[in-house]
């Protein structure tokens, strides 16, 4: 009964357009957890600090305040905001630990509306903002929903070239020795699956992002379960049926189980009902790693974007079939380069997301690109040299060393693959800057991101 009441309230909020579900999308290490922590932190401080000057509602002092409220979905863990803040405020400050499971947080933002209809109802209105955090690896599973075992295998083997082929050698050797029509043997399968998982881990370590299935790398509560023990196979045809009780039959069964029980459940519970989306992209680390890494990330982002529903949402569709009507692409870690490079960063980001942009543009939704930093790690300034002023940033690297550095130019367009043979990009990573007590963490253009994402709902 209580549940029904809760759902009715939710439905009412959605109908009144005072409920937004924000999809924070990004591959692993793109800065999703840092972004969510920072958003919560900034919004909680709006009543006392003037920290979001580019968010119109906050700038015009229309936001009364914000607080965390209990979420409606009780089956999902609460986003570990306090822990994340603890890590950011510890000495030395640390980045929040990467997410290993799904979690959710709900914020209630109280504001003075400018709309007359809202003002009639009460002097203040409340916007409920749901933010969901999840490991970026799992997101890569969403495309599996449209693929059967044979086509998935084919896709995986098509991608096996260059670095991937090199890394896959031990797994491929075992796979070729295996006769798929033999009587199923769980132990052999587990062994080869372990090799496959190993290969995926190595891909990630080498800076490749398109790693499927994502649960293999980050199993969560499914660690060691047989549903995670399968792998793609060569030379499969769609029409020939696998022999009963054979290795292939078992692999196929497990794949389908994975699709239905793991991926579909994840999708249904967390992904079907978003209104707004921010896609976080870390453009700098693929530049450090090379051409292949960049292109790999690009295709991974495109694949992920296919799994969301885009379109203009009216009142009815907002109630029953929400669609994402605004997408913001954000290049994170803008604080790791000097401010004059931000424009180049945005231009590079546009190249990175080009296929995804085309995909979403068809639905006639609002899209934009910015560069931002959720939690600022460095201080920007300049150095006086005999040759003149040089822009520089100062911060503490992950190794604990304080450096002042010009991190290098960010290319506006991705250089050719052979550029990396002579030159290297060396964007160092920094620790978050120490926080002042009772002050919101510093950021770059997080307010602009919020303005794009929820600004129109705060009118």
């Amino acid at each position, binding site marked *: 009964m209580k549940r029904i009441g809760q759902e009715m309230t939710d439905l009412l909020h959605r109908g009144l357009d005072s409920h937004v579900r924000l999809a924070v999308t990004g591959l692993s290490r793109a800065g999703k957890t840092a972004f969510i922590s920072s958003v919560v932190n900034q919004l909680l401080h709006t009543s006392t600090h*003037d920290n979001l*000057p*580019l968010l*119109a509602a906050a*700038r*015009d002092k229309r936001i009364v305040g914000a607080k965390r409220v209990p979420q409606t979905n009780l089956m999902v863990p609460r986003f570990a905001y306090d822990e994340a803040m603890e890590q950011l405020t510890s000495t030395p400050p640390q980045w929040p630990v990467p997410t290993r499971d799904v979690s959710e947080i709900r914020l209630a933002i109280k504001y003075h509306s400018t709309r007359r209809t809202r003002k009639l109802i009460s002097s203040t209105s409340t916007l409920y903002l749901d933010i969901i955090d999840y490991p970026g690896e799992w997101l890569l599973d969403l495309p599996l929903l449209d693929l059967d075992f044979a086509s998935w295998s084919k896709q995986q083997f098509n991608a096996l070239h260059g670095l991937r082929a090199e890394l896959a050698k031990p797994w491929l050797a075992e796979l070729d020795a295996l006769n798929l029509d033999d009587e199923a043997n769980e132990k052999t399968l587990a062994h080869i699956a372990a090799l496959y998982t190993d290969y995926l881990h190595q891909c990630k370590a080498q800076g490749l992002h398109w790693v499927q299935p994502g649960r293999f790398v980050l199993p969560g509560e499914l660690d060691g379960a047989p549903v995670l023990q399968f792998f793609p196979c060569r030379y499969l045809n769609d029409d020939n049926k696998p022999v009963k009780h054979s290795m292939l039959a078992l692999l196929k069964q497990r794949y389908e189980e994975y699709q239905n029980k793991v991926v579909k459940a994840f999708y249904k519970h967390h992904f079907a009902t978003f209104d707004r989306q921010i896609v976080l992209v870390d453009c700098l680390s693929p530049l450090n790693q090379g051409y292949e890494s960049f292109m790999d990330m690009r295709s991974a982002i495109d694949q992920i974007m296919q799994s969301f529903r885009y379109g203009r949402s009216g009142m009815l569709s907002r109630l029953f079939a929400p669609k994402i009507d605004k997408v913001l692409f954000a290049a994170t870690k*803008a*604080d790791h380069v000097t*401010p*004059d*490079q*931000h*424009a*180049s960063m*945005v*231009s590079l980001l*546009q190249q990175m997301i080009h296929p995804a*942009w085309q995909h979403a543009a068809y639905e006639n939704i609002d*899209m*934009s*690109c910015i560069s931002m*930093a959720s939690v*600022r790690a460095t*201080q*920007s*300034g*300049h*150095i*006086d*040299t005999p040759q003149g002023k*040089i822009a*520089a940033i*100062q911060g503490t690297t992950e190794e604990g060393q304080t*450096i*002042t*550095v*010009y*991190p*290098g*130019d960010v*290319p*506006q*367009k991705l*250089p*050719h693959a052979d*550029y990396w043979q*002579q*030159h290297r*990009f*060396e*964007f*160092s990573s920094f620790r978050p800057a120490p926080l002042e007590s009772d002050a919101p963490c510093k950021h*770059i*253009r997080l307010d*602009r991101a919020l303005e794009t994402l929820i600004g129109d709902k705060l009118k």
Partner: protein
Amino acid sequence: MSELKTKQVFSQPLQADETHVELNAQQQFSAQQTFVPSVSEEETTGDVESQLEQVIRPARRRKWGVVSVLTAFSGLVVWQAVDSVFSAIQSADWLSLGWAGFVSLLAGFGITALGREWWRLRQLRQHFSVQEQAEALIEQDAVGQGRVFCEQIARQSGIEAHSPAYTRWLNSLEHTHSDADVLEMYDAMVLSEQDKQATKLVSQYSTQAAALVAISPLALADMLLVAWRNFSMIDQLADLYGVELGYWSRLKLFKAVLVNMAAAGASEVAIDAGMDLLSMDLAGKVSARAGQGLGVGILTARLGLKAMSLLRPLPWHKERAVRLSAIRKQIVAKVTALTVR
């Protein structure tokens, strides 16, 4: 691609960026240009452009012919004067020397007045060029010039350095803000205060104009009254935004306002005119004079709003632009209060 600069580690202490750099607009633009993605690739630029309201400014023309004729004329006059003074001294004609002194004193007054006019005309022209610079800054998303630019604007428009809005803007600035961000914040924090006062002025004047026409019994008196109110409204607005007006620059501004009113965006006119006609029609049903008063009031309000968009140092952001509808309501209320009893 080998022109990309590589990583550089420094041992010197980091210096905070200086803020009081002289703005050298022309040169810095061209230096920054290499960082700006070309227009065809940046999808967001189209966005920004459409968010700014288009304003038609008077074109800058150099009238070389007029200038050269004037120079020749003044040169000849000076020559003639010097010549006649010399001959007067030589022939000891003290009377004509006295006359020459008197006339040149008068001419001096005239020249100062003319010079002041010219100076103010120049100032107006400079004001328009500031608007154009602001548009350029917003469109090209560079870093580093916004703050200096806005500080200059604030000085010109007479904003006190300790006013709360201005200090708030200064405090919210970060080195990482792009020029467009800085300008947007200035627009929304500092300039919005001036806008509020200006809107109040416009609505005050337009309700007054509406009331005057609604109660005055003479058509000719109406026209004169309205013209007088409108001129003094534009004067007050210019004063508020810190633009100094002389006789010629006032005329020029008035002309620009009229041109902008005539060439307002088609959609804007369609929506506004529809509403105007409707309210005028309704008021006309009650009383013909009330309908006329309403029409004149709305016209004055439109004039005032256009003058505002010409006098502001920054272009209007679509979201924050003052709409006619906000003022119309007050006019209607005033006129109905006067005529319907």
